[in-house]
């Protein structure tokens, strides 16, 4: 059996950690990264500490990764940050930080992974967006704008690299219990959930299910798609 390799950013906690654990259970080799130390102890889990918004660190990371593996079956760009603030009160530094991690980080990972992905039989890129984009959530202008950029990046990568057999899709989770939403007031989450066709909190398993779907070899014709959970449409 050929062992499959998956790269997951932001794998030290929350959804990224759950995704890593899932793929380890499925027998994959998981290459995880985060700014903090890895929490998973497993023979097939390899953790790298880096800042994904740093071009130098990402380049060095892929050079190191390239020495360990000859192909990548999938990349999940899960790492991201959010910040709640009224547009008028958002400092430029916050704007820069959010775009550096959410947009530039995703851009760098997609770009640097192309060579390794190109050698896989069914290469996949999965990016993370948010329901804040279609719902135009107040107080999330910069976060939502950064994820709009990720969505456009996803769709253009899908067009440019479909010829290589690489599919590129994005998942927009509805609220799930992770650190990303811990700063969001409970009333706001409740109001948001009410807008969903399926009005309940999602779980990491709901996202894992969608990641599995995109990764299946049978999903080779599915690319450039943005899927939001909970029945939210753009």
């Amino acid at each position, binding site marked *: 059996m050929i062992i499959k390799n998956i790269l997951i950013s932001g794998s030290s906690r929350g959804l990224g950690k759950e995704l890593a654990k899932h793929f380890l259970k499925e027998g994959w080799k998981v290459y995880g990264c985060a700014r903090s130390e890895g929490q998973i102890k497993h023979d097939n889990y390899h953790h790298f500490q880096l800042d994904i918004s740093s071009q130098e660190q990402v380049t060095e990371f892929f*050079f190191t990764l*390239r020495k360990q593996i000859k192909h990548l079956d999938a990349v999940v760009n899960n790492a991201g940050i959010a910040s709640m603030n009224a547009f008028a009160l958002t400092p430029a530094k916050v704007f820069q930080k959010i775009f550096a991690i959410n947009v530039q980080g995703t851009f760098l990972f997609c770009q640097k992974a*192309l*060579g*390794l992905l*190109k050698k896989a039989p069914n290469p996949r890129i999965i990016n993370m967006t948010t329901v804040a984009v279609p719902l135009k959530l107040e107080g999330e202008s910069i976060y939502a704008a950064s994820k709009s950029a990720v969505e456009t990046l996803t769709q253009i990568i899908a067009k*440019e690299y479909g*010829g*290589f057999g690489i599919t590129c899709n994005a998942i927009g989770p509805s609220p799930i219990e992770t650190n990303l939403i811990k700063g969001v007031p409970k009333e706001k989450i409740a109001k948001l959930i009410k807008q969903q066709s399926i009005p309940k909190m999602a779980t990491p398993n709901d996202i894992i299910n969608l990641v599995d779907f995109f990764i299946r070899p049978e999903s080779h014709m599915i690319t450039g798609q943005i899927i939001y959970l909970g029945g939210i449409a753009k």
Partner: protein
Amino acid sequence: MNITKLQEIIFNAIAMTNNIREDDKQIPQQIDTELYGNNGHLDSMGLVAFLIDIEESLLDEGIQVTLSDERAMSQSKSPFRNVESLINYIDELIKEVT
């Protein structure tokens, strides 16, 4: 890395590209083969795939260079116009990083 090895890497990348091209669209493995531009065999996406293959082969040799950076794009004569110009360009890049 010597020029002969670089030429071998580029010819291997041409062979990989030829694998997915029609019989009448094969790219000759020759030093004067036009790659990209007016009489080039590659379109822009073909060039991207070709350069990725070369970068991967260079990484196999422990050499990390970015072939399609701003400098390459801003040169009045594209380093990607033929095999010879590409070899010279990569040779320059390698000398800079080593």
